[in-house]
């Protein structure tokens, strides 16, 4: 039983440890903003070059989601597309297997 579900158990443990790490980090690091590392990277570029971040302009014009809500909706859409793909084909495989 244990051996049969060893990867499921490992995955649950990994997720729990990950959550615990997050709770620990967020309680110990009062100033942690949990900003995206992309954003942190960009501020580092500004620091190295001495050019303020606002002065970096897109080379190719870009549509920016007007708010965080719209951005997260589009991210959810991306995940949903992936989820449908995965679920669809796992279901297809399961059906094939049951048919024999």
């Amino acid at each position, binding site marked *: 039983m244990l*051996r*049969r579900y060893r*990867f*499921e158990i*490992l*995955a649950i443990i*990994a*997720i729990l440890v*990950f959550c615990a*790490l*997050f709770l620990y*980090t*967020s309680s110990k*690091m009062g*100033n*942690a*903003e*949990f*900003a*995206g*590392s*992309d*954003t*942190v*990277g*960009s501020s*580092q*570029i500004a620091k*190295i*070059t001495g050019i303020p971040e606002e002065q*970096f*302009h*897109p*080379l*190719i014009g*870009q*549509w*920016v*989601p007007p708010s965080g809500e719209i*951005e997260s909706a*589009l*991210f*959810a859409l*991306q*995940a949903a*597309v*992936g*989820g*449908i*793909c*995965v679920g*669809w*084909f*796992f279901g*297809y*495989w*399961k059906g*094939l*297997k049951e048919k024999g």
Partner: protein
Amino acid sequence: MHIMEGFLPVFWCVVWWLVALPCLAFGVYQLKRVLAADREALPLLGVTGGFIFILSSLKLPSVTGSCSHPTGTGLSAISFGPWITAVVSAIVLLFQALFLAHGGLSTMGANTVSMGIAGPLIGWGIYRALRDTRVSMYVTVFLACAFADLFTYVVTSLELALAYPALVGGVGSSFVVFMGIFAITQVPLAILESVVLVLVFKYIVQLRPGILIRLKVFSEGKILAAGRDA
């Protein structure tokens, strides 16, 4: 790992696009061939590609107090190699550049090289080195996925360091700084991602071992033994 639009000088945008384009062209060619040769490859592509879509949309918090996202490219790299993985990654990166302002069209070459090519290439290399040894199939998958994820961020750091060498210490010291931002944040995420992808791989082995055997992902012996074991 996205280098934001406008944050890479024109010269480097062109360089990385020039690296990415031939790889993508070869990936499209390979993709056509694989799909034409075996109809059962499409579902596997859907599952492994689907996880790239899902995992690269999840921005997770890390021990450094910032957030980053896994790449999910490992399974695809193992099943189809790095070039086809580059094509799937480029589709995700295009979506994110156009609709999410994550990365941009000018930096997409650099982002494709890190997420779609360099990371999967390292993951695939590790997998190829271990595939025919006695190392367990699942350990191989774990290591390949973890390094595909982690190495993506090492390359992003390198791309930024090359474009922005520090005044003191040059590319080297700049690289260390960017590694601190990207790669260290990524370590716990890479581990978590790989544990999940190992689980997914187990389900593929249980449900559809045939396609893995036909694509010679692992030897028939290893796959059948794992199927009996589960």
